[in-house]
């Protein structure tokens, strides 16, 4: 990995035509440098990235490098500094990698726009002018989404897909509700992806997998208790991790349960729900296992009442490298399975989201249910 050239451009009168010309000369120079003329310029999409303060810029830069190695893109990075004097500047750069199994370098380009104070609001108009035509636009909004924020709204309007991370929510109760509002807004055209939701995919897939087995399928309609154990955030032991709320919201919305009551008890949250004639309880319980890292889910248990009691469990190993499933049907059948679980890096998660097109209705409904449940607890 190397950055071939960096040509900082400081100018109050930022000029899109100039940036384009600089990109062109960058490629020409790169082609001449390489003796075989062997670079491939690849581009599958436009990747917009918004970073709310420059503390995060370095970390985000690395992630962009990893993401574009798999998904060659024109990257347009906006680094905002609300505290600074008004300024806006841009520079262009490129990154090249040699993918495994290839002899040639594959190169992508990046335009970084730094803006401060009142000029942050100008950044969206610069990046939208720099979007490559005909290719999809993906926005990674590295902050809590806010309706009414002009920068957010303009960038979302220019995008086909928006990636957020609800694990970053500082106030899950309010932020989840705000997100539900954005998703419910008719003018929202872009599809939303949530890295926090993506991290739940293995859990959802394993839970769903239990009931793919024809013999166990009827037990789904006889669920009576769901227990989700999670590690609370250290700064606020009382806060519910947004991930466990999303998982509860997912089960509730998928299975069509109606919320009847919610209560807090010794740090746990207990929801009583109605599934037709049946009552179901969903409990979110802080784990007592100190080895589980904050905000993560430790274990999910689903219990059904039938002639023989059945319980399905998915649990994370303490070191986080494995995930275990356990099926118990009465006394006689216990099937256990251990799977490798590589906690995916942020860039791998983003990469996965970039492969998906279209809106994720299941996610949107889970957010709405989770918002409802969190609201019921706080009121």
């Amino acid at each position, binding site marked *: 990995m190397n950055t071939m050239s960096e040509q900082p451009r400081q100018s109050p009168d930022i000029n899109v035509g100039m940036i384009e010309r600089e990109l062109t000369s960058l490629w020409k120079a790169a082609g001449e440098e390489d003796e075989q003329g062997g670079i491939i310029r690849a581009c599958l999409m436009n990747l917009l990235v918004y970073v709310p303060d420059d503390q995060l810029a370095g970390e985000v830069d690395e992630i962009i490098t990893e993401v574009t190695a798999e998904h060659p893109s024109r990257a347009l990075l906006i680094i905002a500094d609300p505290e600074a004097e008004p300024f806006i500047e841009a520079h262009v750069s490129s990154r090249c990698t040699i993918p*495994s199994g290839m002899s040639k370098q594959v190169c992508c380009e990046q335009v970084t726009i730094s803006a401060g104070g009142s000029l942050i609001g100008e950044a969206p108009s610069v990046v939208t002018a720099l979007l490559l035509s005909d290719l999809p636009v993906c926005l990674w909004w590295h902050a809590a989404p806010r309706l009414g924020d002009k920068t957010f709204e303009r960038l979302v309007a220019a995008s086909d897909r928006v990636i957020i991370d609800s694990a970053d929510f500082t106030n899950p109760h309010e932020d989840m509700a705000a997100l539900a509002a954005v998703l419910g807004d008719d003018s929202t055209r872009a599809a939303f992806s949530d890295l926090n939701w993506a991290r739940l995919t293995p859990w959802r897939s394993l839970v769903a997998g239990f009931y*793919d087995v024809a013999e166990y*399928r009827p037990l789904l309609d006889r669920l009576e208790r769901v227990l989700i154990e999670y590690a609370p955030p250290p700064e606020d032991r009382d806060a519910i991790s947004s991930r466990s709320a999303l998982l509860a919201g997912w089960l509730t919305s998928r299975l069509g349960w109606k919320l009847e009551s919610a209560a807090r008890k010794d740090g746990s949250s207990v929801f009583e729900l109605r599934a037709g004639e049946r009552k179901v309880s969903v409990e979110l319980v802080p784990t007592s296992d100190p080895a589980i890292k904050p905000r993560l889910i430790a274990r999910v248990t689903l219990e059904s009442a039938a002639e023989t009691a059945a319980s399905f469990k998915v649990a994370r190993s303490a070191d986080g490298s494995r995930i275990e499933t356990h*099926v118990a049907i009465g006394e006689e059948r216990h099937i256990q399975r251990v799977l490798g679980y590589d906690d995916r890096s942020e860039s791998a998660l983003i990469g996965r989201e970039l492969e998906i097109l279209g809106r994720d209705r299941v996610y949107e409904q889970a957010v709405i249910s989770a918002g409802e449940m969190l609201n019921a607890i706080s009121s």
Partner: protein
Amino acid sequence: MTSTNDNPLREGVRLERTADPCTVIIFGASGDLTKRKLVPALYRLTQEGLLPAEFAILGFARSKMSHDEFRARMKDAIATYSEAKSVDETVWESFAKGIYYLAGDINNPESYKEMSALLDQIDGERGTAGNRVFYLSTSPTFYSEAVAQLGAAGLARPEGKGWTRIIIEKPFGHSLESARELNVDVAKVFNEDQVYRIDHYLGKETVQNLMVFRFANGIFEPIWNRRYIDHVQITNAESIGVEDRGGYYDTSGVLRDMIQNHVFQVLSHVVMEPPMEFSAGEVRDEKIKAMRAVRPIPRDRVNEFVVRGQYGPGSVGGKSAAGYREEKDVKPESATETYAALKLYFDNWRWAGVPFYLRSAKRMPKRVTEIAIHFKQAPHMLFSETTAQQIEPNVLVVRIQPDEGITMRIGAKVPGQVTRIRWVNMDFRYGASFGVASPEAYERLLLDCILGDATLYARRDMTERGWEIVMPILEAWQEAKPDFPNYEAGSWGPKAADDLLEREGRRWRRP
């Protein structure tokens, strides 16, 4: 397939296909393929969570072994042959609990009784629900016997719940007659929809890409025919020799080992009409329809259409290489071909008059599989005579391995006062645009079979059609003694193969 559709939790979980509980029974479990490919692939699938917990493997062969000894062997195999070259202890432990072994003989009915009892026991212990995949990974001489015995033991179409499928390894027959006999034997016991004939080329991502490339890009379909295409070349070259498979190879040759099955499968993807939908039935219907249109090569004119070759000593990749006849387990006077090139025509509307040149060989300068579509020349009169001489036809190359990708050669004007044309490649590489690794062919194929999707397996009619096309060639060759060796290891094949194209004013592409 199970009731996954009515599982409300499945919706939107980005795993479209989930596998039923089942047991995979491997015939030939002490053999080479089991340890090199099959068990490592099943382990990977488990590790990735693509197989359910209710899954088991039952190994079957004559060697005496306990369950634990077989498990230990398989653990070594995964450590040695899997891509990761390592085993995760805890994942392994839960995987190993589902591995069983039964010592027995394919010819002995008693062994199948034991197998049947053990399978019932496994269903109880592992919740595998009576679903079974039998995998025949033994010498092909046992295929018919194994199938008949399974039938006699009531294991092929058991009463009650559960499905049963059978995977048959290559080679599928040694001639048209033997392939037909095998198909008849199989059909006595299994329904065609239970039968999965392995052609690992079909498991390769790029062969599948070829279909997407043709049918998802509207711009190619209109020119994919005799009006625009001059001819097509398919090259399937290996740089290796026969290695330690000399004994088997010497009874086979490249026509049987590669062309009759793999190369024809690739060819059918180029030639076929668009299927109505991407289903096993439709795709395979279109492929066989295309291959039925191959004009038969008359036995007495084989030399006009086909060239055979065998390598002599030479040098490949900077290393000296022995000639074929000097290889281990090969007869010193062997007449087995290690090179074959053939010209085929299709008698149908789309391809009438377009020659397809196919070649496959061992000990070529490099390993490459590619399809090159040579388009017709543009009309000349537009440019002055000197310019016109520089005009070459467009070529579209679909490379299957290595460095999978698509290249289009186009003419462009060299900037300046005079019109000079230079040929440049527009290049697309899968590796450059998608940084993700493709799954191993055996992983994809095993999972497909467990899911009940036979699209990437060879159907009965296709296996027989392949043999029908090559039989006259094999028979003509049988009659005349070849003048072997006729190409040097590390060269692009015998002179006669160049002549095959030059007679018609064409040339082999250098891949």
